[in-house]
């Protein structure tokens, strides 16, 4: 297995507590960072090449360098722990098992940004993790790692956990900011960007849990060393949440650049497809990214092995490629209905649309209805084109990227699996039988 920087020591005793975390080298990076200048910390993160792990992959150091610094106005760091992109469960995994790495990463990052108050926005459903974080934060306060004059450096920071209450859109950074202000999570029109006007109209940086945790090894090992891990512009390690029809679902930390084929089939990672079935398709980066059929996933358009990296997964653009996204790797075997899976995702986006933009609000609803016609056996060939038409009219025409996220799965499913849509049309109601993938007997088998 490649190098692991975030979840390497989860088996160590008491790693979830301050004492256990410290016994394994925890908070050394904080001590080091507090002896540096804030700008130097930003420079290290820039050198590391770290890219946002929440889905968009935007360079973190660059994002930090954009933060406005009007005199007398507070700045905020907000950790996005809303993790609700279907297929993604790495942040919960990390926070639950090693809460102090997030806290340490947040103190260092807040220091770099000059923030004296920071928040962790955790989704409300993860209430038990909320309490794990509260406990860990209290430990940090008691040890002088939070509060006034941290470790005698003169730097003050208050860190609070804030909980959501069930809304995928609050993962979008401006929706999250609205929600933190106590409102509906309706995304804002940008500009102004949060770095200029974020929470309570103050300069704000929003970063994903994994991004902030990665700052810890970066400071420990230096940005230059971190940048040597991985491949090209995909530096460092990434947590991949692997789910679906594989032998070993779970969270894996990979060095970016592992071949996709190795990730799926090797015993170190997913351990191959369950029940000896064949691989049909994968959604490689959370439900929002384009679905790819097995052959296009494993090989790039040039016929080279595809790698788990930002660049390699997107090679071939949307026609032939996909995206690394949040690292939610959803695997489907040969018996899976791509059409029904798409209906499920589309239903999700319709349900989660905040309703501000008509293309997203109406379009997702129409797409869901049309897809339902396929499942019911009443769709026509013209419906395939209609679906294509609707998705093309959402993409790029909305306030926030949820609209795009709803249209890409539809576009890619039609692009790569058109014949399956046609089969639904031709067989009509006879197709109803294959809709319920994984029928009753599967859950009666021992899957625990």
């Amino acid at each position, binding site marked *: 297995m490649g190098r692991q920087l975030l979840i390497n020591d989860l088996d160590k005793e008491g790693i979830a507590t301050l004492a256990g975390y410290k016994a394994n080298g925890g908070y050394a990076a904080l001590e080091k960072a507090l002896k540096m200048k804030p700008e130097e910390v930003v420079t290290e993160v820039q050198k590391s090449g770290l890219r946002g792990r929440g889905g968009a992959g935007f360079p973190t150091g660059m994002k930090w360098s954009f933060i406005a610094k009007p005199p007398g106005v507070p700045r905020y760091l907000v950790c996005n722990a809303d993790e609700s992109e279907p297929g993604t469960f790495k942040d919960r995994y990390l926070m639950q098992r090693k809460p102090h790495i997030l806290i340490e990463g947040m103190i260092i990052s807040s220091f770099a940004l000059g923030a004296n108050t920071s928040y962790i926005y955790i989704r409300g459903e993860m209430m038990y993790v909320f309490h794990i974080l509260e406990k860990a934060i209290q430990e940090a306060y008691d040890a002088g790692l939070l509060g006034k004059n941290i470790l005698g450096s003169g730097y003050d920071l208050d860190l609070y956990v804030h909980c*959501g209450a069930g809304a995928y859109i609050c993962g979008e950074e401006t929706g999250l900011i609205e929600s933190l202000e106590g409102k509906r999570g309706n995304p804002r029109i940008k500009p102004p960007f949060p770095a200029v006007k974020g929470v309570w109209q103050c300069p704000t940086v929003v970063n994903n849990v994994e991004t902030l945790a990665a700052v810890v090894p970066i400071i420990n090992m230096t940005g230059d060393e971190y940048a040597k891990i991985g491949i090209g512009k995909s530096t460092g390690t990434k947590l991949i949440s692997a789910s679906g029809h594989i032998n070993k679902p779970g969270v894996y930390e990979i060095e970016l650049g592992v071949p996709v084929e190795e990730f799926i089939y090797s015993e170190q990672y997913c351990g191959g497809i369950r029940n000896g079935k064949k691989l049909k398709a994968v959604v490689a980066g959370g*439900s929002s990214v384009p679905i790819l059929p097995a052959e296009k996933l494993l090989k790039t358009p040039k016929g080279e092995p595809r790698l788990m990296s930002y660049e390699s997964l997107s090679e071939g653009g949307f026609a032939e490629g996909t995206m690394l996204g949040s690292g939610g790797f959803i695997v489907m075997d040969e018996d899976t209905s791509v059409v029904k899976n798409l209906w499920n995702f589309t239903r999700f986006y319709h349900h989660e649309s905040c309703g501000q933009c008509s293309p997203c609000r109406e379009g997702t609803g129409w797409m869901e209805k049309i897809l339902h016609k396929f499942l019911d056996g009443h769709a026509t060939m013209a419906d395939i084109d209609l679906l294509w038409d609707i998705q093309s009219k959402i993409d790029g025409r909305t306030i926030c990227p949820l609209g795009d996220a709803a249209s890409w799965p539809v576009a890619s499913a039609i692009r790569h699996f058109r014949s399956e849509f046609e089969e639904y049309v031709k067989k009509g109601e006879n197709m109803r039988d294959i809709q319920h993938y994984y029928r009753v007997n599967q*859950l*009666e088998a021992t899957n625990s």
Partner: protein
Amino acid sequence: MAEIKPIKFSDEALQLCHKIMKRYPEGKQKSAILPVLHIAQAEFGGWLSAPVMDYVASLLKIQPVEVYEVASFYTMYNLKPVGKCVIEVCRTGPCWLMGAEDLVKFIEKKLNIKEGETTADGMFTLKTVECLASCGTAPMMQIGETYHENLTFEKCSDILDNYKAKGEHVSHWRKERITNHSDIKQ
């Protein structure tokens, strides 16, 4: 139903709400609305009635409509009475791939209710929810703050029987946690 209680938080809950309000800058106490509504839901039988929301508005010194607006946006708030124990089964893609649809049918049959309904004895309400970040241990359901993962019919059936035997109210925000809550503000 239960006896009519005056709409007021217990002292512990009230203290906690004030603590939470202090986490936000002066004048921005509206930010506390989501956690305070969770506490309200735990205090008042698992759902938010209009009088409860009005009470929360007065506590946060905001207009009642600001609370209704928020409460109706977020799926974790129940705006109608629910059973003592709300079963939330994840129905999204990765769980669906692993049989969530059949799991929902199984629970419907076992409890003799449809999704969205409450059992006649007021014990269970069945809800379906979106991805709970537990896709690697699918299919799964949440009850209160607890994730029940890698479910089979048998396992699910046992879990529900257990809740029924206990017969207690279960909420996301565990009441016993309220009193133990640490005071973070230095």
